[in-house]
């Protein structure tokens, strides 16, 4: 997928500007109560301005207020449009990839060419090299390499085969080699690709639970301030009467609505949906597709992660890390022996033995003529592998390596002696989470190779971060408890399940949830599906089965198990951004009151022609009542634009623990929100008075 890091791209901007006007439609805007009120206020002011103009009275003040109120709505619309625009750009690239294709449907024993969108669930199609897979499905026969770069952006082909966990294919991807039969698993217009596109475009975006709750809060605050403003003319009238001023001097509608718009939480109200959309967008940038915004929100709440050991915590394969000889043998001899035993061993373990021998003792496999050697591959029957070397002038060397019990039996069968200290070494290695391989030549045991699960670089630090974030990690492995414990300790996970069966995951998730935890996991196999469905955030790997992909609420296109950590961060960022901007928005009100109220009240209770006593509340020393009101309205509109980048990028997340994060954000957005408008409104006031706008 195209990585798009620039926030404002000219093509997106152009569409967004157009869209922000389109979004003025009150039916659309009604979903956002705060901005809807602003639109009503803008309309009222405009009507008043025009009707006055009609009567021949031009009010530059009313005009400017009307313009800025419209801008306030437009800016909010713009924020949403930009956020959507970035998603749409990504969806476009996907749409291009989804060409109109034909399908080769199997009917009975005949093949029939039909358009792909005529396929129904349950149909069977055939695909050969060069064919585009017409719809999502499950491979029911054959094996093929498939180019999935259209959805993953990864150019290396992947293998898809029937049975097992690699059977799902996605519509729109291309078969590169071989022939497969596919059973279609989705209805037209409802394929995985369709879902991704509509999700990215924001078409199927629904408000998440937290967003709904926040909208209620904002609507409630709006009503409170609406009442505060609506009752003001009555209080003012009392003041006018008491000051002996005429009732015709009551506050004008444009001034009242200016106060209202400044007080209601327009900043967060205007940016709320942009924050939500961009949260999904940030996930897509990491090649994760969330099937609902709810899942992203839940990701921020996760406090338990279930992680498979292999591939997530450790590299996929075990590696040789040490040669431990028995007391009578020196290490180099053992290393040489081990190397010979592995020459023909093409497994990653075998290669790692040769590599270790080379690195540690600078040993290289000698050129051995084929007629002098006989390779003995690993078989299930012998459970050993090795080599027989017959050089003409030397005795035959029969070298074998294998698990301890196998070699012990082998030595004893050949009348050899299995030394006691080998057992000690073997036990020790197993206890430390390694896998021992015993090496022998002829009837003599030379020593033991330590094979070890290699914990991925940097994973320990990531778990440390997670712990600071308050997230517990649980490792799941099929290893025995001893080995599992050793790896768990090395990787720094908090807990582990050893000798885990697939159903153990489900049990564990339920257990954690019953204790109030929110659990996230990553999985790919069909047997992971129930656990993925049960987890609060289940991320299915794109390489996984169809069942797994349907069960989870996110799909990781890169199939990278450590992605879960990034998903959590995106979720947290999303929630933090909402909280930060809400706090900022509410804190702003203090300054706005101090700008507008003195401007309104300064005429009341004036003595001997001087300014009224409430003028003293004008602590910002704004130039005139009109400039004060206009400055507050302008600040209120402009701040939305200034905060769009923050809304789209999200508040920076640092794994520091809740209380530290809170202190930082409180200082920046709470205290900042108190102070910023004082400075901002004063500056705007100075500017507009200097250019004589008022």
């Amino acid at each position: 997928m195209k990585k798009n890091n620039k926030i404002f791209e000219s093509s997106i901007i152009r569409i967004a500007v157009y869209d922000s006007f389109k979004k003025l439609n009150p039916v659309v805007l009604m979903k956002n109560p705060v901005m809807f009120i602003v639109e009503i206020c803008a309309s009222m002011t405009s009507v008043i301005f025009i009707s006055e103009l009609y009567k021949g009275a031009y009010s530059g003040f009313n005009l400017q207020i009307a313009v800025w109120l419209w801008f306030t709505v437009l800016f909010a619309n713009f924020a949403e449009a930009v956020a959507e625009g970035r998603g749409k750009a990504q969806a476009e690239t996907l749409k291009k990839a989804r060409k109109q294709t034909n399908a080769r449907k199997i009917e009975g024993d005949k093949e029939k060419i039909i358009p792909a969108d005529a396929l129904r669930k349950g149909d069977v199609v055939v695909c050969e090299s060069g064919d585009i897979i017409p719809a999502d499905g499950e491979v029911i026969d054959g094996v093929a390499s498939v180019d999935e770069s259209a959805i993953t952006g990864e150019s290396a082909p992947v293998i898809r085969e029937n049975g097992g966990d690699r059977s799902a294919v996605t519509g729109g991807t291309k078969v590169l080699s071989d022939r497969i039969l596919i059973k279609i698993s989705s209805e037209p217009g409802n394929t995985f690709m369709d879902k991704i596109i509509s999700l990215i475009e924001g078409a199927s975006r629904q408000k998440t639970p937290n967003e709904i709750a926040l909208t209620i809060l904002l609507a409630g605050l709006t009503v409170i301030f609406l009442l505060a403003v609506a009752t003001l003319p009555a209080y003012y009238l009392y003041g006018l009467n008491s000051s002996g001023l005429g009732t015709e001097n009551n506050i004008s509608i444009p001034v009242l609505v200016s106060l209202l718009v400044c007080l209601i939480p327009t900043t967060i109200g205007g940016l709320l949906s942009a924050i939500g959309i961009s949260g999904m967008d940030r996930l897509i940038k990491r090649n994760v597709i969330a099937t609902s915004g709810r899942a992203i929100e839940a990701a921020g709440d996760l406090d338990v992660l279930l992680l498979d050991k292999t591939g997530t915590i450790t590299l996929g394969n075990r590696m040789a890390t040490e040669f431990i000889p028995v007391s009578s043998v020196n290490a180099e001899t053992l290393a040489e022996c081990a190397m010979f035993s592995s020459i023909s061993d093409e497994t990653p373990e075998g290669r790692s033995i040769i590599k270790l021998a080379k690195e540690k003792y600078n040993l290289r496999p000698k050129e051995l003529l084929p007629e002098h050697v006989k390779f003995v591959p690993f078989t299930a029957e012998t459970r050993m592998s090795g080599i027989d070397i017959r050089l003409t002038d030397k005795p035959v060397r029969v070298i074998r390596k294998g698990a301890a019990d196998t070699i012990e039996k082998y030595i004893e069968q050949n009348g050899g002696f299995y030394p006691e200290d080998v057992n000690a070494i073997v036990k020790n290695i197993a206890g430390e989470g390694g896998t021992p391989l015993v090496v022998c030549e002829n009837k003599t045991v030379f020593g033991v190779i330590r094979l070890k699960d290699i914990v991925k670089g940097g994973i320990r630090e990531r778990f440390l971060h997670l712990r600071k974030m308050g997230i517990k990690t649980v490792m799941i492995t099929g290893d025995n408890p001893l080995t599992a414990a050793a790896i768990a300790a090395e990787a720094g996970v908090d807990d582990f399940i050893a000798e885990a069966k697939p159903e153990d995951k489900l049990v564990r998730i339920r257990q954690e949830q019953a204790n109030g935890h929110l659990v996230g996991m990553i999985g790919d196999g069909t047997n992971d599906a129930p656990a993925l469905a049960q987890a609060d955030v289940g991320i299915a790997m794109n390489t996984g089965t169809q069942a797994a992909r349907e069960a989870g609420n996110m799909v990781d296109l890169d199939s990278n198990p450590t992605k879960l950590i990034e998903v959590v961060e995106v979720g947290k960022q999303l929630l933090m951004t909402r909280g930060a901007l809400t706090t900022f928005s509410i804190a702003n009100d203090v300054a706005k009151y101090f700008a507008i109220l003195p401007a309104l009240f300064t005429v009341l209770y004036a003595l001997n022609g001087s300014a009224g006593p409430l003028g003293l509340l004008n602590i910002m020393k704004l130039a005139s009542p009109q400039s004060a009101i206009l400055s507050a309205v302008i600040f209120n509109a402009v701040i939305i634009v200034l905060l769009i980048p923050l809304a789209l990028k999200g508040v920076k997340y640092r794994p520091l623990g809740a209380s530290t994060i809170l202190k930082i954000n409180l200082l920046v957005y709470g205290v900042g929100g108190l102070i910023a408008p004082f400075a901002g409104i004063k500056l705007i006031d100075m500017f507009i008075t200097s250019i004589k706008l008022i």
Partner: protein
Amino acid sequence: MKINDLIQPFVFLLLVGAVTPLLGGYMFKVFSGKKNILTPIFGKLENLILRVSGVNPAEEMNWKKYLWSLLAFNFAGFLLLFILQVVQKWLPLNPQGFGNVPFDLAFNTAISFVTNTNWQAYAGETTMSYSVQMLGLAVQNFLSAATGIAVVLALTRGIVTKLTDNLGNFWTDLTRSVLYVLIPGSVIVSILLMSQGVIQNFSSYADIKTLEGVSQVIPFGPAASQIAIKMLGTNGGGFFNTNSAHPFENPTPFSNFIEMLCILLIPAALTYTYGKMTGSKKEGWIIFGVMMFLLAAGLITSMYSEFSYNPALNTAYNLEGKELRFGISNSVLFSTITTDVSCGAVNAMHSSLTPLAGMVTMLNIMLGEIIFGGVGAGLYGMLIFVLLTVFIAGLMVGRTPEYLGKKIESLEIKMAIIAVLIQSAFILCLTAYASVTESGLSSLGNTGPHGFSEILYTFSSAVGNNGSAFAGLNANTVFYNIATGIAMIIGRFGVIIPVMVIAGSLAGKNKSPVTSGTFTTDNYVFAVLLIGVILIVGALTFFPALSLGPIVEHLLMKGGVLF
């Protein structure tokens, strides 16, 4: 200002802090049904009362049942009190032969005492007979306080328990708070008050000749017993019209001290009880701290204003309207706490306070009576603000908001905002109506901003269930009796109902465990946040109104103009 003026409030507040854990710990035992020091005395009686009433104390109620029991009980109390007043003429213990109370006044008074407001549109010594005072008013003083406690207990259980419908048993909670807390407290306090000279008799009023030779009627009555619960239950309805400024209600500095202490006693102690119930005393202390901070901030502002030079009167001490037996300091302290706590008893007329001190009393009420607040009501009101704070700021740590492990979602927010909104709405709208209509304006005793303050104070006091009056405003008109009556109902049940919905919703939720990623509420950062939200959400709404009332009056006073 003398140093003595500062020491006294300081010592007083220190004492409140010291008593809080003692009484709070005792109430924790009482309300969780544990054996306590009074169980040997009242244990059997409690069981007897419940059995006779047909209540099964083991029965747990869900929020609906709890709420319905509460509403039905309060409605019955309202009816009884209303009827007692309108048939007063035919009841015994009426030595002055008072006639029946008019309907609109009886309506207003009945609501007033049922809602723990104790707004008094009447003068006690010229309107109510002894039997109505004792059977009607005093009884509701106990029951309305107990109702407040019951609600906060239900809410706390909702927060503390998980995955259940059960919020406890309303009847048990009610019985326990009356039996173990309010009655023993009242007995002790009435005896202390009587020792200071507060009267307690059924005598007819006395006609005496004063030193100046004019004749004066001296009212009597069973005052001490009623004053004890008036303070302890944060009711505030005085036996006599001038309330605790009357020498028979509040004769000595010591009785004044006791009465002030009684106002704060239970609301403060409930924070500790709350902490114990949540399993973390710190949670309670943080709430106590926030309340105390707001109280102190108001007190300091008032003291500053009262002890400042007043150019209009050319004096540095504003003694006008103060009870000279107690002095400025004790009058200001009394006015601050009685408005913080939704008590409404007064020992000096708030109308006579300097404008800023008057504003403090108004603002205390407008915040929703959450600075300790009415018995029970203050704490559940504060918890509403806690939920709002958790929701606004909790997001900032990157989790969906939760309070003590309970997720705060749409329903909770909807109810919390309704509870806050409904109070502001009624104060603002009724004030607006009264300040521009003849029916509102004709009752005013003063002009200018001070007259506006009278209206604003009246409706704040009614909605906030405070019950004190700014004085100056003639509240015994049909308009004010009905308007304040409605305001009192809304201010009381418009909050109780949403609170009960929240209690029910929270009880049904699972509790998420605390991790380092959890937003915690037992620290000073949260306290600062909570204060910020209270002031911005609670106070800013009233900033325009306050500007046109006490603030402008203060500024004018500084220019030498009085109203």
